[in-house]
């Protein structure tokens, strides 16, 4: 059973897409007259994808709970923004979202591809048709057998967070736009146009860098603020599989810029564009196929699409390798004079190498369960693996970034470089000394900090130099590097000097933790708008005091216990209070509680207990009397095997007074006693408290506890630099994106002009396809 219009739209997209590929191939073979048809087919494909998305959204907004997807992820009481976000809460919806962005981006691609339109669009459409095929098989429009449920299962409470509403759409823009450099690279290999593609694909690589980066940060911020891990990054497979493509994209952006300026290093970008795209597919395979189910704190469900994902992954990796191998010898290599080590060209190559090595190592760690499964024993790497490997790589990257601003492409003498770097060296030394003054001592940390400050200041000076010449637009790269330097400083300081402590706070007893005095005051009950929270009075060392309200509540639908930390932020430090456990307190108890259901026998330490029936005075209940006598009939079978019937009295008071429970001897077991703790006539069950049954008396004793709250208190100094540095990096990315988009548009217009000068004929498929003006100037 299916919701037919939706299924028709998806199948329509598949057919239009396949037809589009076929017609574009014929256009490429010389049937220029078919170009309008090919474009119409692409438009039809895009329309179908948008229509399918619109239909799914409409079904969600209309609460059509007879649709399986709507039923699984949404419910009637969700507010509008969460209801919209249920669109991408499941696998099918997120694949559809990916295709949705892809179909829109394609409308720009076909206009900018110009003389490469046919080959680029063939590759571009192909990157999405696999996903569309998955949606045909695993449709989000499946209907449930009638009757339709009145309400849906609802959205996972952890995802009911504003950050999780926007995180997936932003991330999938990045995924979709990475198809563009990949398609241009494949077209370049196919048509042997080695340089023309860079100028038009670079903005899309930058868009991926921006959106995927932003999505990663939003995920990290969500983890920090909601999950209560105490950190923003946990090296979970889901996080890693978005970080790895982002690192490859960063490498690609640098490589494309290098090729734009130097007209060399063509092979690097062809490989990187294929690798970055493959990394996204591989990540999708890892997180969607269920292969990591036992290894991640996120759980993945195998929808039966693993085979499809492997096929798509294999197709594109195979295609990339075949294309590269086929054309490898014909890719022109420009012989040039040897550049000195200290030249921008060499720094770029090194930087790209470090990006790729870092991404590969993270990928290796994430793939550990699969790799080790091949050898028999599935294993996982500890998170220390990532800390060990990423630290030296991060250091190298920032070190390289610090050299770039004052080194020219052709190379410089070391002495001259030192002269221009002197000011930044002094600034970095001063800032590092300040850190020492605040207590930083570890040599490794100080080296990292010095490098981070040096990189930030060197690049900041480059930004200022550009601004003075009124060329801020070209300062994007430097500005991004300033941000990277700041971010590294923040990561190092907040990581190395975070102080974390777990304390148990008995109610109303002040305790010192994290440089403050905490007093747990009370549980603030939840209301419709506000979740249940714990009220903690915080008195700082400086004599200020405030109240922190970490949330801790039971999810009303699942009974799952949810805990959100409370964060007191200032630019200098974050005080992070993550609730761990709340103990309402209980008096000392002696005994062992056993729940028995009617007619079943439960064996406790060799003694059989069979609960036969209740015998309640129902007439008293009917008369509305406040006191009800319940007699519980049991058969007890001790080790000697002789059944003995026992009846235990239990007097229940309706007015809330404590029940009176008679304690009886357990026959056949010396000194053992039993009494009724609770009865639930509706379930036909009784709870007994047994004493003296266990051989070890310690097992039956539970000491009294007072009401208390356990919290992890963490002080994170300068974590604001992580977020701040990130914003600066993204601002740099946006500047670069704007500048490169303008260049791309200009290049497209120039090609159009050239084409019309030739009387509508496209520029020949070989020779320099790069218009003169795009040769970028040296500074």
């Amino acid at each position, binding site marked *: 059973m299916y919701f037919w219009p939706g299924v028709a739209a998806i199948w329509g997209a598949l057919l239009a897409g396949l037809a589009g590929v076929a017609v574009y191939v014929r256009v490429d073979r010389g049937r220029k007259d078919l170009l309008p048809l090919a474009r119409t087919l692409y438009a039809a494909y895009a329309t179908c994808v948008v229509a399918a998305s619109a239909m799914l959204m409409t079904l969600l907004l209309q609460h059509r709970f007879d649709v399986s997807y709507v039923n*699984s*992820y949404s419910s009637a009481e969700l507010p509008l923004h969460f209801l919209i976000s249920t669109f991408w809460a*499941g696998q099918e919806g997120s694949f559809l979202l990916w295709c949705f962005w892809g179909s829109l981006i394609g409308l720009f691609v076909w206009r900018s591809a110009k003389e490469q339109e046919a080959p680029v669009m063939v590759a571009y459409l192909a990157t999405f048709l696999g996903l569309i095929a998955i949606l045909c098989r695993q449709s989000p429009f499946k209907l449930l057998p009638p009757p339709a449920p009145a309400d849906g*299962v609802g*959205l*996972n409470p*952890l*995802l009911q967070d504003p950050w999780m509403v926007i995180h997936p759409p932003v991330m999938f823009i990045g995924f979709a736009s990475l198809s563009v450099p990949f398609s241009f690279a494949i077209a370049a290999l196919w048509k042997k146009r080695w340089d023309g593609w860079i100028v038009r694909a670079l903005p899309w690589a930058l868009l991926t860098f921006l959106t995927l980066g932003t999505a990663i940060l939003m995920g990290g911020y969500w983890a920090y603020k909601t999950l209560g*891990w*105490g*950190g*923003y*990054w946990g090296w979970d497979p889901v996080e890693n599989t978005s970080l790895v493509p982002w690192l490859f994209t960063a490498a690609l952006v640098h490589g494309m810029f290098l090729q734009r300026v130097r007209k*060399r290093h063509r092979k690097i970008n062809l490989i990187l564009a294929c690798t970055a795209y493959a990394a996204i597919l591989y990540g999708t395979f890892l997180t969607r196929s269920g292969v990591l189910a*036992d290894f991640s*704190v996120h*759980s*993945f469900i195998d929808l039966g699409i693993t085979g499809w994902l492997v096929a798509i992954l294999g197709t594109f990796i195979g295609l990339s390798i075949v294309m590269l191998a086929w054309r490898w010898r014909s890719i022109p290599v420009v012989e*040039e004079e*040897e*550049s000195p*080590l200290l*030249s921008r*060209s*060499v720094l770029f*190559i*090194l930087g790209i*190498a470090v990006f*790729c*090595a870092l991404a590969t*190592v993270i990928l*290796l*760690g994430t793939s*550990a369960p699969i790799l*080790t499964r091949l050898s028999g024993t*599935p*294993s*996982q*790497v*500890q*998170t*220390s*693996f990532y800390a*060990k*490997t990423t630290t*030296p*790589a991060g250091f190298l990257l920032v070190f390289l970034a610090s050299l770039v601003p004052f080194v020219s492409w052709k190379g410089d003498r070391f002495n001259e470089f030192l002269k221009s770097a002197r000011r930044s060296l002094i600034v970095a030394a001063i800032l590092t000394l300040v850190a020492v003054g605040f207590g930083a001592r570890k040599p490794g940390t100080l080296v990292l900090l010095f490098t981070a400050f040096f990189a930030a200041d060197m690049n900041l000076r480059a930004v200022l130099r550009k601004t003075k010449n009124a060329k801020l637009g070209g300062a994007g790269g430097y500005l991004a590097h300033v941000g990277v330097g700041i971010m590294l400083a923040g990561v190092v300081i*907040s990581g190395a000097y*975070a102080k*974390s*402590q*777990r304390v148990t706070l008995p109610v109303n007893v002040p305790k010192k933790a994290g440089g403050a005095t905490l007093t747990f005051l009370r549980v603030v009950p939840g209301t419709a708008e506000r979740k249940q929270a714990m009220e903690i009075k915080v008195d700082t060392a400086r004599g200020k005091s405030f109240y922190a309200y970490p949330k801790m509540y039971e999810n009303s639908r*699942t*009974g*799952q*216990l949810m805990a959100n930390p409370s964060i007191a932020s200032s630019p200098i430090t974050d005080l992070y209070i993550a609730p761990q*456990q709340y103990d309402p307190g209980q008096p000392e108890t002696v005994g062992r509680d056993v729940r028995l259901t009617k007619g079943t026998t439960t064996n406790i330490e060799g003694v059989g207990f069979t609960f036969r029936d209740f015998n309640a005075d129902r007439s008293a209940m009917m008369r509305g009397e406040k006191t009800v006598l319940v007699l519980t009939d049991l058969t007890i079978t001790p080790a000697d095997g002789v059944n003995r019937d026992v009846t235990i009295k239990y007097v229940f008071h309706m007015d809330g007074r404590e029940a009176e429970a008679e304690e009886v001897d357990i026959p056949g077991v010396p000194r053992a006693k039993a009494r009724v703790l609770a009865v639930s006539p509706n379930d036909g069950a009784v709870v007994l408290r047994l004493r003296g049954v266990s051989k070890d008396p310690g097992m039956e004793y539970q*000491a009294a*506890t007072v009401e208390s709250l356990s919290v*992890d208190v963490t002080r994170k100094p300068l974590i604001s630099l992580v977020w701040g540095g990130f914003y600066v990096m993204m601002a740099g990315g946006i500047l670069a994106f704007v500048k490169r988009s303008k260049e791309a548009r200009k290049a497209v217009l120039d090609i159009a002009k050239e084409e019309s000068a030739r009387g509508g004929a496209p520029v020949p498929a070989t020779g320099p396809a790069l218009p003169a003006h795009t040769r970028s100037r040296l500074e």
Partner: protein
Amino acid sequence: MKKGYWIAAALTLAFVGFGLTAFQKTLTPYLSFDEAKKARGVVQVMGALDKQSDRYDATREELSFDLIDDKGGRMPVAYKGIKPANFKDAISIVAIGRVHEGRIEAEKLLVKCPSKYQGAEVEKAYASQPASKS
């Protein structure tokens, strides 16, 4: 320029080599109870909670319980830390740590609880120390 490529290649290889050694050192294998009892180093085991076996000392924050695997094997677990929320509801528990005298001293527990949400995080990690994540 050739020089640059060579250094880049050497750097990449050295780093990936370094990554591989770190990889082997930090690998924690998923083992059956019998294998784990013989193994050295950090291992992880998975099983169901024996609901009669768990003891928790709230003042010293020490938890001990037994895991049972599908073959009926038993693995005692000791864990120093606050008892995870929803511990009793766990469908399965993964304990990561070292085995001493037939008992695993867990540094980390992954508690998998039933969830009716598809694709939901039903598993939660608990570390014996306050989570030290950067």
